[in-house]
């Protein structure tokens, strides 16, 4: 063959193949850079904030946004929609500065004129930033954020995108019970994984350093810098969009965070910084500002936290209900007293008591304590249905057997084995179970979930890697509630687990899977579910 022809063939072949690959990325568009998700054909895994949030705000249909940082990741949009009558999305950014969150919010309001409500946390940790600061640890995918079509080559001809997302999206459509759609915003971005909460976890690597007596001042240049940051990244967007109501709240960090401030002599300074932010924000009519720092019954109870700043998902639920009920709303009239009380509280608080605080064996205890405020009544009343062996038998049992006389004399189901799911498969466990019907336990159907608020059960590991994975699917195949094991579940004791069903309606399928989540688990893994109740 002549070299000219070879070269021409090489160039043409390369261009054609690259075009085909790029076109497939364009069509499926897993980062929604070009168009809405094709949720009638494919399933879109939502799991990478900085790659997907930009596309989500520009192309999804919604009228409300939950945004902020990692402490907003556990909000449930289904709760927000039920409370406020919205159709919301959630686009938080782990470790983000105010600017980064605000830049995304600006994109959203420019792309979507239907937005009427924004809920956003304000992190006190960001008070020291300059207004244009971004987290320097990250290599931001600017090609997804800008309008330059030329640099889209980083997206269209991207190996990870092609083989981790695009091609699997095609192959998943061929699975037995495949349901197109996308990860729900209740689940995005954290997945169903459950953390452990309580003093033992929060203080595991914490060192009680001496508290500094002198307080650090708040100089004027820092005050000016903070005001600039507030204006550019918190309030300007509200001024430019008077039709939107912005609900901002100070992230309710734990008492351990305040102890860290005390060590640095920073408590008064933070109060002063907060005062500056409050005064600036209160000038704006369409911003409602909340703070829950004074709810020390929650913030000083480490059973609500997994580390000094990150609170449990039920605290997110409580925050939503508080915003709805206007609990913790700061006004011109009350913010002075609020700040004064807060300062006095932490200047005299006995931080040493945190060391001996009770760590609930069942973390759902902390959830149950907040339920009256979240829901307005006692948690376990009115309708209650015990799931007995007859009800279990009416479901589909697989790799399991029913047993009598288990937890407190109630019936149970013992599951055996492991899922055939591959280790570190891209498909999440809940989607895998739905699409393949592979589980170790039982699948129950509830014709109407509306009367029920909670699913409660007790569980115990019997052998090896047995662990609880309970998934509630709606009729569309979306996971609407779930509980997956603690990361540190090592004992063989009974534990209580609670799933939230408050905002779920219609027919639901509940899968109790006690097998290990993938093929690397022991085939002898076993877990028992018992004392199952619907409240």
């Amino acid at each position, binding site marked *: 063959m002549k070299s000219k022809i070879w070269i021409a063939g090489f160039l043409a072949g390369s261009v054609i193949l690259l075009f085909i690959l790029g076109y497939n990325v364009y069509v499926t568009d897993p980062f929604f850079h070009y168009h809405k998700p094709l949720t009638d054909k494919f399933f879109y895994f939502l799991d990478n904030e900085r790659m997907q949030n930009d596309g989500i705000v520009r192309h999804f249909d919604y009228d409300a946004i939950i945004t902020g940082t990692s402490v907003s990741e556990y909000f449930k949009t289904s709760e927000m929609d039920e409370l406020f009558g919205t159709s919301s999305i959630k686009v938080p950014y782990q470790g983000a500065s105010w600017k980064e969150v605000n830049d995304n919010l600006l994109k959203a309001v420019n792309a979507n004129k239907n937005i009427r409500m924004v809920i956003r946390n304000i992190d006190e940790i960001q008070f020291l930033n300059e207004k244009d600061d971004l987290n320097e*640890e990250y290599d931001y995918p600017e090609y997804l954020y800008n309008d330059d079509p030329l640099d889209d080559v980083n997206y269209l*001809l991207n190996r990870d*995108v092609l083989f981790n997302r695009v091609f699997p999206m095609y192959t998943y459509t061929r699975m037995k019970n495949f349901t197109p759609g996308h990860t729900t915003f209740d689940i995005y971005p954290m997945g169903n994984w459950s953390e452990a909460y309580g003093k033992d976890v929060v203080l595991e690597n914490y060192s009680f350093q001496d508290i500094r007596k002198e307080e650090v001042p708040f100089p004027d240049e820092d005050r000016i810098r903070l005001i600039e940051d507030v204006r550019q990244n918190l309030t300007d967007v509200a001024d430019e969009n008077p039709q939107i109501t912005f609900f901002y709240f100070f992230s309710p960090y734990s008492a351990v965070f305040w102890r860290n401030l005390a060590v640095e002599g920073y408590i008064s300074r933070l109060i002063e910084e907060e005062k500056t932010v409050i005064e600036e924000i209160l000038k704006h009519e369409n911003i409602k500002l909340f703070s829950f720092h004074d709810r020390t019954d929650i913030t000083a109870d480490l059973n609500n936290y997994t580390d000094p700043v990150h609170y449990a998902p039920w605290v997110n639920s409580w925050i939503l209900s508080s915003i709805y009920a206007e609990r913790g709303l700061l006004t011109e009239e009350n913010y002075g007293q609020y700040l004064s009380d807060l300062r006095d509280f932490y200047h005299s608080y006995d931080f040493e008591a945190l060391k001996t605080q009770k760590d609930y064996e069942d973390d759902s205890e902390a959830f149950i304590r907040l339920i009256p405020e979240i829901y307005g009544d006692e948690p376990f009343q009115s309708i209650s249905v015990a799931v007995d062996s007859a009800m279990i038998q009416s479901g589909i049992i697989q790799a399991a057997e029913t047993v009598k006389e288990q937890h407190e004399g109630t019936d149970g189901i013992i599951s055996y084995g492991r899922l055939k799911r591959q280790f570190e498969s891209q498909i999440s466990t809940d989607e895998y179970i739905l699409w393949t019907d592979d589980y170790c336990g039982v699948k129950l159907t509830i014709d109407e979930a509306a009367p029920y608020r909670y699913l409660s059960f007790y569980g115990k590991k019997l052998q090896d890697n047995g662990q609880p994975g309970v998934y509630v699917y709606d009729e569309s195949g979306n996971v609407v509630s779930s509980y997956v094991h603690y990361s540190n579940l090592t004992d063989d004791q009974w534990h209580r687990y609670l799933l939230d069903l408050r905002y779920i309606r219609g027919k639901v399928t509940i899968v109790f899977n006690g097998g290990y989540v993938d*093929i690397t688990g022991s085939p002898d893994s076993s877990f028992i579910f018992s004392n199952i109740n619907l409240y």
Partner: protein
Amino acid sequence: MQFNTYNFLLLFLPLTVVVYFLCNRVHKNAGKIILLAASLIFYGVGNLHYSLLLYASILFNYLISRAIIKYDNKKIFLASGIIVNVLILSYYKYLNFFLSSINEIFKSDIKLLEILLPLGISFYTFQQISYLVSVYRKELNDRSFLSYALYILYFPKILMGPITEPEELIPQFDDEERKKADFDNIADGIRIFIIGLFKKVIFADTFVKAGSWGFANFSSTSTADLIIAVVVYLMHIYFDFSGYSDMGIGISRMLNIDLPVNFDAPFRSLSVREFWKRWHITLGRFLTNYIYVPLGGSRKGIIRTYLNTLIVFLISGLWHGANWTFIVWGLYVGVCNILDRVLEKEINRIPKIIRWFCTFLTINVYCILFMSNSLAQSWEIITHLFQKPDLRISYEIIKAFDLPEIIFLMNSLPFQNVYKIRRLWVLVFTAAGFLFSLIPADTLYRKRKNTVMGMIICILIFVWCIISLGTEPTFVYNNF
């Protein structure tokens, strides 16, 4: 700019090749100007500040070369030029090392300066010196500024070599026959370039993940982990460096320019001296021509030969980096070479397989010294290797070898347990890389017949490399 970027592969390179040959039809120097402009863009993109340093250096050295030509005190000008070049390199590369060493020895507290190393300075400094010496020795006919600037800036080699002699490169820029497009050479150049790109993007960028993890976590790794990490890190350096050289050679072949071979299957070596004849060949050539030979080489008796050898490798160590590890590395390599020379007859009696193994082992020790942050760390790594053997391979090592396309393929096929296959993949990939590294240079660079199968393979590999440039970062923030 780098070779392994979308901009370079899809825009810069094809445009440069086409425009170069078109301009050569217009005027005999037009092509050279285009190459110079392309080289300025290549070096300047994202690097403007240090471009100015390079331009100043080019101007300075050119003026020195004119002074050497014009005036009688040629040696003084030559010496001055060399000294200034070395001083500039020393400032950027060694000043902070020198200051921190002073602080360590004398327990002082001299503040270190914020100095960023200009890209390619180690390479272009040596080539500046080569040029001055060539001018001094009257080895060049064309001493125009255009040719000289192009010799230094020539983009296929400016960042990482090969280190070329001016008399082997500059005449090629002026050769009329080479200014016409030669489609056979373009086809060959494409093939060689793809080999280099494949080495860099598929092998080097994969091996570096496991190697980096192993070195960063050596205190908690198993013996097996650490052995894998050291070996694959060595292979990463080879594939990264030789891949770059291959790409430079391939680009030049497209332009009808021949660059010297820089790597010739160094892992085939049966002795450490043979290794240095196969690894970074042009550096060895430079050190031999400009340091070893002027010091007397092997002409001044055996002790002087050994001393000169030690000096050369010490300089080589320093050239590679500013740390005591590089100095010890240089001395260690020098001593190994001397011993290899002294015991040559005895060594040659040993079966080849044993000689190969011992050589490979020695090279891996070079790698440990080369990659460690400190002598203490090097020692810790070496002793960690000899602790109680633990042959478990960590999950992080296995994960480092996960190529998305291979995982997708594994998941698509009816494998029962993909995780077990992934462990096997580590072995397969490493073995494939090792075998590939054994292909001699003349096999890699030889002219080939144009076949359909060859074209299809090139298309597939080229496209595979292009898409491998893109990744999906994950953003892990531990604190918040």
